[in-house]
């Protein structure tokens, strides 16, 4: 049936006007009129509603104003005090003055928050920083324990050796000085040798050396032999002295050993020199000339020269070697920890 198909809620065709009455929608104009108490022209069905609105509006207008409370009455009588800033001030406003903050987190919550903050800070740093901090802490702790001597025996021995080695390294600075002094001594020996040769050749007086007395004496093979022997002895003594110095700077045991060797070699050299001097032709009381290299040497050389024998025996070289050896031993002994 077509009529049944076309009938729906939005289509009024086929409706039984007597059974299904429809009222027009309440538009804004009609609503405004009804709520204002006026009866719309085409909506007589809303007359009762319009009458109700009119009655209500009239009653409300006729009602006197309610009695204000004390605070409102004071405001109505005195007005708003805008000079004190009361006008924009509300009940919960801090416009007039900052309100005291009475509430805060409880102490247990604040402590827990502080702990959480510290943990977060530690967790926030990088892995490298963590590793560095941990290594520094471990190193500091281990060093402290080692200084107090509480490490296990092998570890403590290793630490002591390392500590002593580092101290020795620190005390090696004079060794360098000694090495330089030795180098200067070698150079000085060469210069002194030249001085001796010049003295022998030019026969000019040398006021700085004891060989000045022998300046005008003729050169003889025996004297040359003595001079060579003394020179060798001096070199050997100087070498022994240098060796002793090296030994002193290198280590006490090794230094002592080298000092002994130097001493022995010096003695042997001096003995050989005396033998040569004894076998040489006697030209008179000639003074040995092998002491000169000690003149310009270090201060030890002066002492050795002072102890020179009046007979002209070249014992100064051996004595100098012994003194050097003994001084090396003393130095080594002083440097012991």
């Amino acid at each position: 049936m077509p009529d049944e198909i076309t009938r729906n809620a939005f289509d009024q065709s086929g409706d039984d006007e007597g059974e299904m009455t429809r009222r027009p929608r309440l538009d804004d104009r009609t609503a405004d009129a009804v709520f204002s108490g006026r009866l719309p022209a085409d909506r007589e069905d809303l007359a009762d509603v319009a009458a109700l609105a009119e009655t209500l509006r009239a009653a409300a207008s006729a009602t006197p104003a309610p009695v204000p409370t004390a605070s409102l009455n004071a405001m109505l009588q005195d007005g708003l005090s805008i000079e004190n800033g009361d006008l924009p001030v509300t009940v919960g406003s801090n416009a007039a003055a900052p309100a005291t903050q009475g509430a805060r987190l409880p102490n247990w919550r604040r402590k827990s928050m502080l702990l959480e903050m510290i943990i977060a800070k530690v967790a926030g740093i990088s892995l490298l920083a963590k590793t560095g901090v941990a290594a520094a802490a471990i190193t500091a702790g281990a060093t402290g324990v080692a200084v107090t001597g509480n490490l296990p025996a092998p570890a403590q021995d290793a630490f002591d050796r390392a500590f002593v080695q580092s101290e020795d390294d620190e005390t090696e600075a004079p060794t360098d000085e000694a090495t330089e002094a030795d180098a200067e001594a070698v150079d000085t020996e060469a210069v002194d040798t030249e001085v001796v040769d010049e003295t022998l050749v030019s026969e000019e007086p040398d006021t700085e050396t004891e060989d000045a007395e022998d300046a005008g004496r003729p050169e003889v093979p025996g004297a040359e032999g003595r001079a060579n022997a003394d020179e060798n002895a001096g070199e050997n003594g100087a070498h022994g002295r240098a060796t002793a110095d090296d030994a002193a700077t290198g280590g006490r045991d090794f230094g002592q050993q080298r000092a002994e060797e130097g001493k022995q070699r010096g003695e042997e050299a001096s003995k050989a020199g005396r033998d040569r001097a004894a076998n040489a032709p006697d030209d008179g009381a000639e003074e040995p000339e092998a002491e000169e290299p000690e003149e310009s040497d270090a201060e030890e050389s002066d002492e050795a020269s002072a102890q020179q024998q009046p007979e002209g025996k070249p014992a100064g070289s051996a004595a100098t070697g012994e003194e050097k050896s003994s001084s090396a031993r003393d130095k080594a002994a002083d440097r012991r920890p």
Partner: protein
Amino acid sequence: MAIGGPFRDVLVAAQTGAPWALQLLYEDLSPVVAGYLRLQGLRDVEDHTSEVFLGVFRNLAAFSGDEAGFRSWVFTIAYRRIVDERRRRGRRPDPQPLVAENDPVGGDVEAEALEALGGSWVREALAELTDEQRQVVVLRILAGLSADEVAVVIGKRPGAVRVLQHRAVERLRRALERGRVSDPMGGN
């Protein structure tokens, strides 16, 4: 229910704290606000009305607009007061009244006030409506607000307000036709 005269001058004077302007605003709007609060079922209507106007005057410097806007703003504060009071009542129910409802000595002050608002038939007719429909009808009738202004006050869309007012009018009409409420024109 217009303030009359230059509303802007009255508003500026009230914003500067002039007592006469404040009194004028209070006398013009407080009866309507009190009726609105009363028809919404609040008790201690005078105290609530005073609190509403304290809020209005303290925030008066922040308002800017015309008279219709001012009325809408005042009823917005009153509407929020109703919401707060209903919420408070939900958390803390009122104690039992000291005077029974039928006590002839104390009487029913609110009923007397409602009687002043047109009689018991008005209260009975409005009782047929839901809370939202009653909000819209009372604001439309007493405050004289438009559908859009009511939407702003109660926080709904204008279309929803129009639907509510349409259903409220239909319900009032059917109730009056069925005679469930006495016709004021016909007398009780």
